[in-house]
């Protein structure tokens, strides 16, 4: 029996319970060995490619913080030139900062030009690699080092940048959100994405025990709670049309917030919790998340 090739090796230096480490392995195992990974600067490339070791069993390139979209465009163009694009997947991956903030321009260009590339965002909702600073995907009222709680602050005053909507607005054929809470769904979405020609985007919710302040063993529990409260809707846009919505029996947002240190200041601020409940309710309405009896 042929030996199964390991595409993502254990022994890397991620924190115990890191959601991104789990998701990255699931992604590459779903995509398979005929895949080239282009990775922005962030936790993932730092903990998987510390010279002289690498966790990757597939071709992997890390360049800079914001350019995975552009480097991947170059890789894909080179494969096209060589006549090798058919049968080779190209995945451009980054954290939330590298996707929604500094990397958005390159991604937008890549999507607009229609490159046959899957872009994956590992959304742990802050710049974790540099020490938990606020990003464009940091949720409302989240405590980060650059949106700290204080005498006059409840944390991040802004909403998450709707990157899946931005991706959809580019007219790309496939957009999806996913989570480490639902492994099979995540891997199915990766497989579906790479079967489609053109630009694809998958945003994966990945808890960060260090940044969100919860036990490493709680990662999947926390991720699940995000979905069950409606705060992280799981859905697909196939050719711009809403599809594949993961329905929920909505739980109150406290069920999610109380699990994490980054939200603990809210437990004494019911008016803030009300605002967050509104966010969840809006998501439930917009994406039709509620499971009807």
């Amino acid at each position, binding site marked *: 029996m042929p030996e199964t090739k390991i595409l993502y090796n254990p022994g890397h230096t991620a924190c115990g319970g890191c959601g991104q480490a789990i998701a990255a392995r699931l992604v590459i195992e779903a995509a398979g060995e005929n895949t*080239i990974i282009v990775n922005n600067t962030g936790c993932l*490339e730092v903990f998987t490619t510390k*010279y002289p070791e*690498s966790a990757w069993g597939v071709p992997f390139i*890390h360049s800079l913080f914001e*350019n995975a979209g552009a480097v991947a*465009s170059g*890789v894909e*163009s080179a494969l096209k030139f060589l006549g090798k694009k058919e049968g080779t997947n190209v995945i451009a991956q980054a954290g939330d900062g590298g996707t929604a903030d500094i990397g958005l321009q390159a991604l937008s260009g890549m999507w607009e030009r229609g490159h046959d590339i899957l872009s994956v965002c590992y959304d742990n909702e802050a710049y974790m690699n540099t020490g938990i600073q606020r990003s464009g995907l940091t949720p409302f009222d989240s405590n980060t080092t650059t949106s700290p709680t204080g005498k006059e602050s409840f944390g991040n005053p802004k909403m998450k940048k709707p990157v899946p909507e931005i991706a959809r607005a580019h007219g790309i054929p496939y957009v999806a959100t996913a989570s480490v809470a639902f492994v099979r769904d995540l891997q199915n979405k990766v497989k579906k994405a790479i079967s489609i020609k053109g630009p694809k985007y998958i945003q994966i919710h990945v808890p960060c025990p260090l940044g969100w302040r919860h036990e490493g063993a709680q990662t999947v529990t926390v991720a699940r709670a995000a979905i069950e409260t409606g705060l992280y809707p799981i859905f697909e846009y196939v050719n711009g049309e809403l599809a594949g919505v993961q329905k929920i029996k909505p739980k109150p947002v406290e069920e999610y917030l109380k699990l994490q240190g980054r939200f603990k200041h809210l437990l004494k601020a019911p008016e803030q919790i009300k605002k967050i409940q509104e966010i969840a309710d809006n998501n439930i309405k917009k994406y039709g998340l509620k499971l009807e009896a």
Partner: protein
Amino acid sequence: MKKFIEGSYAVAEAVKLCRPGVVSAYPITPQTHIVEGLAQFVADGELKAEFVNVESEHSAASAVLGAVATGVRAFTSSSSQGLLLMTEVIFNIAGMRLPLVLACANRAVSAPINIWNDQQDVMTIRDSGWILLFAENIQEVIDLHIQAYRISEDHSIMLPVMVNLDGYILTHGLEVADMPSQEQVDKFLPPYKPLYKLDTSDPMTLGCLAMPEHYMEARVAIQKTQEAALDFIPKVAGEFKKVFGRESGGLVEAYKIEDAKQVIVAMGSIVGTIKETVDELRAQGKKVGVLKLITYRPFPKQAILNALKNVPEIAVVDKSISLGSNSPLYTDLTSAFIGQDKVSKISGFVLGLGGRDITKDSIKQVFDKLSGKQVDCEFIDVKKELLEEEYAGN
């Protein structure tokens, strides 16, 4: 075939002959005709390549980085603000030891915004590990691009090469130049054979994290390669002569310096003006000459010392300035003389910033001032009234 051709289109045609598989660039004056020329070749089927219209220079450099990392010869071009925007990618490409050729249409750097020629842009990346070549005229523009690929892709080098051509003067000027045939270029430049690449049949990780235990040696290795390039670049020029039948490229070119009492050292199109001025002054009996640097990085210290060893007065002419200190070429050249038994008088002059016209009179001023007191950094053709009235108190 000799052509009467605009510098930018000469770049496009020379690059076309080198058969890149991926071209990616972002428009910026005065580089635009280079990429427009290449786009037309692709559109007409004359160049089989993927042409990637990116949304910024940072992405242009990143796209060609990705292409070369995948084993395909690539090309990009920029200038001024665009070069500065791609600066971190410039360092990345050299640090990752990826071969690439970039044409830089040298232009002044903002602020104030100015689209005309000087060499400040390339000076901002002189520490990056790129090999830096400077063209005097359109023939050199053509020849240096072809040599650049050969230098860059050799397994003993594996460093990117920037060919610098003065914006507007060379990009938009027209000259007669010989455009080689495809057969000649194919004979001189073999297909790119990567030392390492992204390939699913042989996976590798590129762009690792290097801890303090590992980073320094990666940088020392580039320094050693730059030193090796001092021998390799003339070797390539020799190979070029065999195939194309002309002297072109190499480290330096000496013009009438054998018995010169005064020599100007300079790079780029200004050398043409200096050569004409030298001829005029020689006709009047003045023993003057010019030393042209074709290669700036690696810095050809020994070639310069050999050329200038008997020259009592040397003027370095820069089209850039390290504000707060002296000019780059002056700084490099003066340090070359440290520890030498005989040290000439060396003065530094700055001309032509922001496209300020450089005439034969400007050059004569340099020779005149060189006869006087030694100066580190004197600006030529400065408008005193503007400085005193408009900029006083800034």
